[in-house]
């Protein structure tokens, strides 16, 4: 059973029947329950319309809902707004062939969500030297320091399994909005909230002290190549 969309127990009827009853009937019969997308998994954007009643199927942001106890044995989470079609086909193919899918604590396939969206980003050199971009859509610069990019702490594989097989948010020069996370959508998606010039949230799994030390060292150098355009069209 594949569920999409956020979830409410009452007040969402189709042909006179509560969708809740329909979903519960099939979820009990199903061998696997896949929550596809951030709404179905965590509640997502539409949870904000009525946070007291709207949740994901088995999670309400990071909290487990009452359904978790019933369905955790067959639950596979595929958050993302939207989820990538290849993430779904990866899971369906593995299930069809009885290949085990290692899951994390949120029941996300680790194969797809163990690393961050930052892994494989084409801007990694600018990230290492703490050089932010001068604007959206440019080839130069990182988007983490000023433009709100959440890739270093967002679980996902957008820069390993590209969108439409060609691109990703950070490739074209748009910040990652953290759409696979239980916290999606945060406020202020186009700016980084900083603390004394340092991003408030540091890359996933990196101790803040280690991050600040490396940042301090990287920022103390002035590197000419990062001040220039990568491609000059008027030469």
């Amino acid at each position, binding site marked *: 059973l594949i569920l999409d969309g956020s979830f409410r127990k009452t007040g969402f009827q*189709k*042909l006179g029947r509560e969708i809740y009853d329909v979903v519960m009937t099939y979820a009990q019969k199903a061998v696997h329950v896949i929550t596809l997308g951030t709404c179905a998994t965590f509640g997502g954007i*539409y949870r904000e*319309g009525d946070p007291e009643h709207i949740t994901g199927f088995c999670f309400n942001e990071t909290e487990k809902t009452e359904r978790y106890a019933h369905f955790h044995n067959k639950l596979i989470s595929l958050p993302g707004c939207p989820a990538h079609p290849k993430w779904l086909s990866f899971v369906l193919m593995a299930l069809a062939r009885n290949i085990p899918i290692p899951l994390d604590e949120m029941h996300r396939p680790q194969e797809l969500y163990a690393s961050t969206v930052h892994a494989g980003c084409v801007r990694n050199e600018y990230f290492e030297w703490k050089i932010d971009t001068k604007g959206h859509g440019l080839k130069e610069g990182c988007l983490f320091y000023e433009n709100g990019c959440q890739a270093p702490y967002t679980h996902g594989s957008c820069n390993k399994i590209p969108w439409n097989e060609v691109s990703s948010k950070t490739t074209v020069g748009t910040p990652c*909005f953290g759409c696979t996370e239980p916290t999606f959508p945060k406020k*202020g*998606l186009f700016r980084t909230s900083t603390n004394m010039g340092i991003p408030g949230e540091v890359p996933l799994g990196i101790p803040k002290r280690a991050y600040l030390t490396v940042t301090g060292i990287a920022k103390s150098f002035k590197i000419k190549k990062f001040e220039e355009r990568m491609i000059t069209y008027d030469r």
Partner: protein
Amino acid sequence: MIVKKLIEKIEGDAELDFSFNEGKIEDVKISFALYRGIEGILAGKDPRDALVITPRVCGICNHAHLITAVRALEDGYRHAGIDVDRQSPSYQRVYFGM
């Protein structure tokens, strides 16, 4: 006689409620069971967040919703005396052309 019909191919789903009289349609009521309240969700956020949230109202026609948000923001910039007309219209035409 009343026949209810689901409309499946739109995001959010709607229901048509037909009443017939002697084989002819007498009345049709359309009802939308799902109200998501995206305008309310945007309240209190950074205006630019609308560029991320608005298109997610629909997986099929997200471009139209995004352009609506873009135009609303551009109106805001124009009222604030900021020039947004230099590049934007041509981008929008390309975007819709795709």
